[in-house]
């Protein structure tokens, strides 16, 4: 089981990015309903694992940070979901 994706917030971030080319920090915060600092810490872990890519830019003279899902992150998410499905099937069988 992928320890990084056991966190609900990190899993939510990956799921949010799965359907988007990129998502800004503010949108991720709205989706995960968490604080700036908490989300920032979770995002840093995902960036370090190369699951998501971070891009900083300026929009209307204000800094904006955007995140996108990497191939590594997508593969890890798919693997994680498959593992959970098999765990669920095992639980149902026993």
């Amino acid at each position: 089981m992928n320890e990084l994706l056991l966190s609900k917030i990190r899993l939510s971030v990956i799921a949010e990015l799965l359907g988007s080319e990129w998502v800004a920090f503010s949108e991720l915060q709205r989706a995960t309903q968490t604080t700036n600092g908490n989300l920032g810490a979770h995002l840093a872990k995902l960036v370090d694992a190369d699951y998501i890519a971070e891009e900083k830019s300026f929009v209307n003279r204000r800094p904006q940070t955007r995140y996108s899902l990497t191939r590594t992150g997508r593969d890890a998410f798919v693997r994680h979901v498959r593992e959970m499905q098999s765990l669920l099937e095992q639980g149902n069988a026993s």
Partner: protein
Amino acid sequence: MDKNMAMDAEQAREHLEMVDRILRQADERPYRPMGGLYVAWGLGAALVEIAGQFASGGPPAGPLAIAGSIILFGSLLYTVAVSVLARRNASRIPASEVRMGKVMGAVWLCIFVAALCQPHMFASWAAAAIWNLGAAISMLVIGFFGDRRALFGAIALLASVLVANYWFVYPGFVLAGGFLVGYVAIGVLYMIQNARSAACE
């Protein structure tokens, strides 16, 4: 301790349900097309087709054709500027819109190439009708992604081509009507929807 042992089937179920919920929410986000673009493109194309009718199927000439061409050229610049700005200012770019944009790009590239093949490959009214077909395909793409208004617009545009062919009295007016209903009217509906959504936020 093995993480597999730490998570039981019930927790796995909760995890999967959460993922499913998030993905469903992402799918349910409404597509908000820029209505102004459809209004501008529709008006420009309709004016050129009406001008073509007044020129009796020959090359469109006169103030209407000039006005239509200016609006079309302005629409092209407006489309590029608005797309770049919207992309820069957006806080989220859904993957479905990126895919839709690529399909649109492919359709309009083909239509532009076809428009250059006059007068031999697309002579007379065919040159005007291919614009209606391009617009119909682009509306069908949006329609097939779940937008009923776009589907109605596509039907209006396709109907205009059929009617213009089988009731060959005023093909230019009929094709222009297709653009006015299938593009301009739908664009106005999008503008109203976007204004309402902005007021609610």
